[in-house]
């Protein structure tokens, strides 16, 4: 059966078309290739059960692998689930790493009108996907509350009419939250996604208010009010990694635990917007990021072993891809790329892009990824040449270097980042930080899987299945 392979320390890692994997000695790998494996050996039986060997049962092996492959690609049937709306570019923060080049609080010309907001929702509900997720972004979306309200009301109306599942999220720094808004959010079952970079000295270093004052204490105050009003589990947080994070990841994790967040998402900073203008202050290598990631994960695993349930969400996504046959809804690691077909973003003026980085690129003067505008029809936007170009050129199987990579079944393409780095949406893998990061992280996770240490694997599975396996867990 077809397989991909890579040298893995002194062994060979093989992966199948649908993501099954196995470690072999070089000798056993040679036997497999030359069809000389001992049919009575355990290795042979393992390889057969994982459909690396088909014997005389070829069609059974093909059917089983196809079924798993179909499950892995299930995200394709959810075209397009995530609809992100930039309801304003105005922001009351001036974060140094901001990707979106936010505008002054008074620059209302950068607000999405309620009419455009309704058109966005109308277009979103034309998606074939049975599940529609609307995410309000900014700037700070609470600055254009009227658009948030208009879109939410329209979405609820269309949800009742179409019967589609609806999920709404507001990505907010929380500082403008008040009782009126909280009431509306609660009534409409809206989730909150906020930003927390760590303890005050770290959070305030890059996340500052537009007047230069600290944002941390305001954030804490509003976090408490919001949780009290909506419920603890209705508020999640995201961290942005800066050079300061690299040296302080353990205190940051401690702060997340102190503030009773269930986990953390370790993500690297994208080199767009203000961030690229402040390269010296913000830049770090992928080697440095992955070192921090490993350090953080070791710490988190130890915390879990000692009875504190705490999840690393990025690891959870990757492990779900490696250890289960299921698809994830994570747009950034899909083949073909999830940009446009899994997630799409609508700018304040109704322009539509396959990802936030593409919108950012447009603000920098390059409309290469502009898919269209809400005034156009669904088929013009989603059947247009921009999205076709992305899909055709972001299937890992046909991309140089990716096509034979052992980690292909778990990885994805980032055509927008490729274009930003090389002016070519296929990109150049040997110099790609995205490729380097994922190869290093996959290698590290496969080392963990190969070690197969029971407590660690139990923790990983508890993250994948969203159950508690810590010593303090109640039955």
């Amino acid at each position: 059966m077809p397989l991909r392979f890579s040298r893995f320390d002194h062994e060979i890692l093989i992966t199948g078309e649908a993501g099954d994997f196995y470690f072999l000695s070089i000798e056993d790998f040679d036997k497999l290739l030359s069809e000389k494996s001992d049919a009575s050996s355990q290795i042979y039986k393992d390889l057969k059960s994982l459909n690396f060997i088909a014997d005389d049962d070829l069609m059974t092996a093909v059917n089983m692998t196809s079924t798993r492959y179909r499950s892995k690609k299930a995200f394709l049937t959810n075209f397009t689930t995530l609809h992100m709306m930039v309801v304003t570019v105005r922001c009351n923060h001036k974060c140094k790493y901001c990707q979106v080049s936010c505008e002054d609080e008074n620059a209302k010309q950068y607000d999405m009108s309620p009419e455009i907001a309704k058109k966005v929702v109308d277009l979103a509900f034309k998606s074939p996907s049975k599940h529609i997720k609307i995410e309000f972004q900014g700037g700070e979306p609470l600055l254009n509350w009227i658009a948030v309200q208009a879109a939410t009301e329209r979405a609820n109306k269309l949800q009742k009419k179409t019967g589609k599942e609806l999920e709404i999220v507001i990505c907010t720094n929380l500082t403008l939250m008040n009782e009126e808004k909280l009431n509306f959010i609660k009534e409409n079952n809206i989730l909150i996604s906020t930003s927390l970079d760590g303890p005050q000295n770290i959070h305030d270093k890059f996340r500052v208010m537009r007047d230069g004052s600290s944002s941390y204490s305001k954030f804490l105050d509003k976090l408490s009010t919001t949780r009290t009003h909506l419920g603890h589990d209705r508020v999640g947080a995201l961290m942005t990694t800066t050079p300061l994070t690299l040296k302080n990841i353990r205190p940051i994790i401690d702060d997340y635990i102190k503030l009773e967040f269930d986990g953390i998402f370790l993500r690297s900073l994208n080199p767009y917007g203000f961030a690229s203008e402040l390269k010296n202050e913000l830049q770090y290598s992928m080697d440095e990021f992955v070192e921090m990631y490993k350090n953080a994960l070791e710490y988190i695993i130890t915390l879990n072993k000692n009875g504190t349930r705490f999840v690393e969400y990025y690891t959870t996504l990757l492990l779900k891809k490696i250890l289960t046959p299921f698809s994830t809804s994570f747009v950034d690691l899909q083949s073909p790329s999830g940009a446009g077909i899994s997630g799409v973003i609508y700018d304040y003026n109704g322009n539509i892009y396959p990802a936030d980085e593409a919108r950012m690129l447009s603000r920098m003067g390059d409309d290469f990824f502009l898919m269209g505008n809400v005034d156009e029809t669904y088929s013009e936007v989603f059947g247009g040449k921009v999205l076709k170009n992305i899909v055709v050129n972001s299937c890992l199987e046909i991309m140089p270097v990716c096509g034979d990579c052992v980690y292909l079944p778990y990885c994805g393409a980032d055509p927008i980042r490729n274009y930003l780095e090389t002016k070519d949406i296929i990109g150049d893998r040997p110099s790609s930080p995205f490729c380097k990061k994922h190869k290093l992280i996959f290698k590290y996770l496969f080392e963990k899987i190969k070690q197969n240490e029971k407590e660690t694997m139990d923790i990983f599975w508890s993250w994948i299945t969203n159950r508690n396996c810590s010593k303090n867990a109640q039955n």
Partner: protein
Amino acid sequence: MGKTNIIIRDNEFLKIIVSKQYYEREAVFAAAKKFTDQSTIIIRPTPDEKQVEIVFQTEKENDVVMENIAKSFCNELLDQQTRLDLEKRFWKIRNLIVQHAFLPIENLTEETLSCK
């Protein structure tokens, strides 16, 4: 004729000569592609056209060690040729897996089911 030759000069220049008898064009290109971030690479046939020489050039101040590149490239070339051989053996099955995954079974024809 079949022997692989490796020539390194001043850690700036590396030439690896391999036999076309053992390694195909696709394998040489795929292996070389992975080193393009470390050096400039030229691929050309030897004058008798029976072998291929892969030339790696880098700047003096670069911290790349040519001997390490030579070792890694030889293994990578071997791996790429093995991948190519595997692909020749299994590409029809790979295509069949994808076809089965995206088509209802009743739509598969005799032709698509035949992978021999």
